């Protein structure tokens, strides 16, 4: 099986089958990541389109400084941030508040597993942008090293954010985990 980097080189020579293979490998996860960062499905598709093309066209992509996947996430995230800045909302506004997913108040009875998962979704949606990035990149299967490269932060900072993120989620899920 060809590596992502080999497929990338072939796409740049006009090989659309290589593009199809790269798309199959990464589209769903990258789109999932973007979908969590921007407000609507249509916006996510726009950013997705732009991110893939920018990654393919970029002259800055060097695979000794990160894998194809790392570059793709990094460029996608930068596009999201740039869009937010250009709209004057700031990076913090990237987090989509889905108030409809908030857990029902005062739930004392045992809750079903899918309710806990919905609560998890709600908690994730409320994470601040710095922690939300960590959650979604990790859920997309990126290693700690890759995530640190995408976010351009030291590994120690990443580990700290990972701990913060988990603690926030644990705290938010407490009503569901202690109700049993």
């Amino acid at each position, binding site marked *: 099986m060809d590596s992502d980097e080999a497929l990338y*080189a072939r*796409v*740049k*020579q*006009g*090989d*659309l089958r290589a*593009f*199809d293979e790269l*798309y199959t490998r990464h*589209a*769903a*996860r990258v*789109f*999932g*990541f973007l*979908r*969590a960062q921007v407000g609507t*499905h249509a916006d*996510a*598709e726009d950013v*997705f*389109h732009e991110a*893939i*093309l920018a990654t*393919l*066209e970029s002259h800055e992509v060097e695979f000794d400084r990160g894998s194809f996947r790392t570059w793709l996430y990094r460029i996608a995230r930068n596009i999201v941030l740039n869009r937010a800045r250009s709209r004057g909302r700031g990076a913090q506004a990237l987090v989509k508040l889905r108030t409809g997913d908030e857990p029902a108040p005062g739930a004392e009875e045992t809750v079903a*597993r*899918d309710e*806990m*998962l919905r609560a*998890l979704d709600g908690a994730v949606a409320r994470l601040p942008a710095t922690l939300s990035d960590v959650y*979604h990149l*990790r*859920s*997309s*299967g990126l290693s700690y090293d890759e995530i640190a490269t995408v976010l351009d932060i030291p590994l120690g900072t990443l*580990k700290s954010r*990972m*701990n913060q*993120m*988990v*603690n926030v*989620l*644990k705290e938010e*899920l*407490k009503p*569901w*985990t*202690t*109700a*049993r």
Partner: protein
Amino acid sequence: MDDCSVIQGNLVSYHFATASDDEREAVEKHLVGCTACLRTYLALKTHVDRGARERDHPSEEARQRLRAAVEARFRATPARRLRGWLVRPVPLYQGLAAAAVVLAAVALGPAIAGVLRPPPAAHAAQRVDTARPVAESMTIY
């Protein structure tokens, strides 16, 4: 055995590998003997790993639009194929082999040239000065 609520409270940190060694060990021991918590953990893991990608995909239209853009941008032309061939990555062993050939040519070149050079002629032809007379030395009457 730890209480289910304690274990379930640690499932997120266990999944993201931020749990302490003691917590991780407790979770693993508990999951072996508690089907309910094991199911909860598997559901949580599946849910997190799949994330939004299972629930939301780029549309087929978006895929086709992107594919067309890639095709337009990177259409395979002879010039692009040639450039791709020229800038293709070369394996290390091929580079080393090429360098060795160049070094050998540089080192052995003079010796080979000496062997191939024809021997000097026994009687060199007498040199004839064919230069034209210098104008300043001629007197015009």
